[in-house]
């Protein structure tokens, strides 16, 4: 892909997929566009979960590039791990009363 971003491991991608599936499942508006893209498409929470479940699809690849870019360390703010990033989605899930999954997050 065009941008040079860190590669996510399979385990990281699975964690993203699990998180987004739970997040979309708990979202009050899972079919409302969350992100507008300047290619004319949109991403809803359910789209994001679906994309993460299909890592070889165009949207799946985009989604994982975006998450990978999120882990780039720079001097703008304290570096964050994938766990830090996903924790915000789990805050929503827990606030909405959805079940916590088993195992590490």
């Amino acid at each position, binding site marked *: *892909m*065009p*941008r040079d*971003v860190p590669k996510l491991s399979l385990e990281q991608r699975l964690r993203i997929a699990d998180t987004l599936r739970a*997040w979309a499942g708990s*979202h009050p508006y899972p079919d*409302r*566009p*969350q*992100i*507008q*893209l*300047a*290619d*004319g*498409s*949109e*991403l809803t929470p359910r789209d*994001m979960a679906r994309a993460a479940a299909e890592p070889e699809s165009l949207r799946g690849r*985009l989604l994982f*590039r*975006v*998450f990978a*870019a*999120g882990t*780039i360390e*720079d001097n*703008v*703010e304290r570096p964050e791990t994938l766990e830090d*990033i996903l924790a*915000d*989605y789990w*805050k*929503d*899930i827990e*606030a909405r009363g959805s079940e916590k999954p088993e195992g590490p997050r």
Partner: protein
Amino acid sequence: MKDILFARPADDSAAIQVAVWGQAVRQRAGRFKTDDLSGSGATRMNVDSQLAAGFRHLFWFGHGTEKELIANGKALVDLKNVANLKGGMLVAIACYAGVTLGKVAGTTPGLRVFLGFDDELGFPASAVLPMMLAVTRGLSCMFQKGHDISCAAQNLRKQFDVARLDYKNNGARYGLSAGDARTAWLFAKSNRYSVVTFGDDTTTL
């Protein structure tokens, strides 16, 4: 010859949003001779005729692919007509145009330099203001201070950094949940790392 042709097709909801950003940028272009193709006026025929009439620079706010800037599924700007610029810049606030189209800058007659993105340009549907400010403030140094496009690219990156911090620190003020704000943060950061220039980046307006 005029200075800048703005093209803002506004052919769907995302493009309408980005077209407004273009309007805001044009407001800063007071000392330059500009023209504007917006909405239904943004057609291939009109773009071609305007470029033939003579513009140094083209600022595009809309949809893009790797090889084309598009509206209603049709290419309005591509390798064929971008060469009709008169030795200036193509600024493409659009997806993907930095992958192929932008790379001809400096080797194509008429197009000296390109500034755009080599991946998706994404913004949160319900809290777009920080991204709009990133683009309008990012490009403003070229209009207001006469800086070159290299400076504008750096400013654009810095302003996407500002946007991402805004989403992180003030997401609730925008009505975003923690996850919604993080999604916006992710796209602001992704946008920041997708900004590219090709060609002679010392070019000014």
